[in-house]
């Protein structure tokens, strides 16, 4: 099944405010605490880095493919959802994620990941600059995406100066 919308990040617009993280942990676990967030901002002001990291819901998802107990399924929004009834906490999905966007909940020892909030991601609502967006295929402007990644890489290189 194809998802109708995609969660995209534009790091060059990220201000490092972490409102997405805070809102995510509040929504999912009712607490403020980054280890409960399904989106996390790599933030290093000394290096000039702000990068939101979140599951991009890969079509051919390594986390899902590698799960031996079939604990990850796709919902109607295209989100890869962890079924904790089945999950045995082997953490293979964390290891194989190419984006590092499957996280460990230290309390349960089990993985946590973005579930797209049933098609209404709270991180997107709290992002004031459009660094995290939920877009339908028509809304995705490939030129904008290309520019975003180009600027982003440029910023990383210039940082070295």
């Amino acid at each position, binding site marked *: 099944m194809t998802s109708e919308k995609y969660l995209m990040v534009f790091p060059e617009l990220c201000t490092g405010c972490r409102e997405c993280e*805070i809102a995510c942990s509040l*929504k999912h676990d*009712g607490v403020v605490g980054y280890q409960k967030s399904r989106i996390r901002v790599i933030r290093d002001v000394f290096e000039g880095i702000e990068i939101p990291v979140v599951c991009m819901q890969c079509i051919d998802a390594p986390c899902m493919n590698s799960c031996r107990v079939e604990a990850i399924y796709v919902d109607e929004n295209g989100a890869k959802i962890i079924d904790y009834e089945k999950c045995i906490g082997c953490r293979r999905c964390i290891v194989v994620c190419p984006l590092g966007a499957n996280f460990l909940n230290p309390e349960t020892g089990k993985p946590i990941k973005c579930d797209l909030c049933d098609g209404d991601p709270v991180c997107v609502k709290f992002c004031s600059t459009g660094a995290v967006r939920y877009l339908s295929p028509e809304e995705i402007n490939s030129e904008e995406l290309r520019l975003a990644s180009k600027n982003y890489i440029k910023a990383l290189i210039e940082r070295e100066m």
Partner: protein
Amino acid sequence: MVLNRKLGIIDLNKNKVLVREIPVELRKKHLGGRGLNWYYLYNSIRPDIDPFSPENVLAIGAGLLTGFPALGAGRTQISTKNPMTGGVGDSNMGGAFGPQLRLAGFDHLLIVGKAEKPTYILVKDGGIEIRSAEHLWGLDTHTVQKAIREEVGDDRAESMVIGRAGENLVAFANVMNGIKNAGGRSGTGAVMGSKNLKAIVASGDIDLEVHDPEKLLDYSLEVDRRARNTKWAKTLGRLGTPLLYDVSYTTGFIGTLNWQYNTPGEDGKPLEAENLEKYSVKMVACIGCSVHCRHRVKIREGRYRGVVTEGPEYAAIGAFGTGVGVYDWEFVIKCNEMANRWGVDLISLGTTVAWAFELFQRGFITENDTGGLRLEWGNENAVLDLARMIVERQNIGNVLADGMLKASEKIGKESLYYANQTKGHPNLLTDERGIPSFALGIATSTRGADHLRSRPGIDLFQLPEETLEKIYGHRIVSDFTAYETKGIMVWWHELLYNVVDSLGICKFQTVFNSANSPRFEDYVPLIEYATGIRLTREELMEIGERNYTTERMFNVLNGFSRKDDYPPERYFREETKRGLPFMKGRKLDREKYEMMLEEYYRQHGWDENGVPKKETLERLGIAEPDYSMLEVL
């Protein structure tokens, strides 16, 4: 729970740490952050204690809402006895330290004593450890934070640190977090230096449980959107505080060549906000803020090539621009970066440097005092070199580093006339002669000359009186050049800013420069959904009043009274020379000022000498200080 974050009491003399609960009843009286800090300090610093003695206490406090995703609620308060005034010393800092302190399990820290050797305090996962900082002493504020992160092994650890200025006990030294978050004003960094304390580090991830997460999320979003969609916040998010400069210099509201003028006029054009764009890489924010008011800037070529930093703010334009007659963004960026690395309050530094330049012009200071440096207006090298001399306490810098009052005793009593200060605390490079409410605010501020205790920025908008009455609940005269009712306006803002400082909310997302921004009643649901504490708008205002009066009492006990509630004498004697018609030729009217001051005292329930009346203290529940709090150690 949010309400289970602890109080840590640390005695650096005895190398001893105590962890205590913070009773909910105390929260209901003072909220947190600034309010609770001053409750603790009022009850632990005796009047005879010197700010640099080990008995002085440094209080760190996260606001009650610090860490939540609304209204820039990520702020931290640092309070102590002020080395420049001997009264209230108090700084409010953005950045990321406060949220991290709460995740490490604490809301407040009280630090007393003096470590034998350079030390840092590590607050981690509910515990507190005192560690050696001998290998960190001498490092600038950026380098030391990076080293600490490495040492602690947590890339989310946040530190508040001092730099060279704090180590050298420069009376206006800062504490710093990140590249540019400053616990500025009031010499908090110098007090840390006097305790041999290089850094306070917060690391950990203890979840903050909230009362009603769902409602908190919905309401946060609503109030956040409202704040960030005001015209003010939108412009701020694009241009940063330099946007204020454009208004200031065109009208005549910015101290120029140490307030000999009130604007540089056309000369100041290069410093317009739009001209900073060319250096701006992106806008960045404090934790929990959707306004993102600061630039990350980079100078790619020329004399200061390679400088990458954050800011500069409006204050830096005054401090290293108009104040000293240099009109060059690159120079302002460079000085801003240096000040942040040294860990020095750039407002106080700039004001002090500008003062020294005028004293040189008038012959109070000569080349003999400066090691040959000619303090001539517009001389970039002279500005940067004098600033460095102050931080390193060389030549005249050693005198100026003690603050304006002490320095004037050595330079000559008459020199104090040219110092723009109140209670010995240097002012921001703004010129309040044309705006009585602003003048009253800087003069009555508990921490000394200061625009962030009460400044009613919206006074300049001359809003319709019905609108003003709706906001303030009193009749307020619309004309910003008027004196009457402005005492009430200032009082209202004092309460508001105290409440937001105690909640950890940023002033830029509150009624300051936009009448449409959130105010008292808008915090009521936030507090309830986050903590379960139900407070009314009136109760919040009363807390603001209680907290502010506690600070006032601290000052009273330390010898302050009406005599200390006046702006610089120059404002009464010399007319402004430049600016638009409503700003030109203005000076303060002494008689009207006295009337305004008395109205302000009346509104507060203080007597004609500015001392809180007995019935006021009783009404607010402020008792005599008991000084027993730290005796448990």
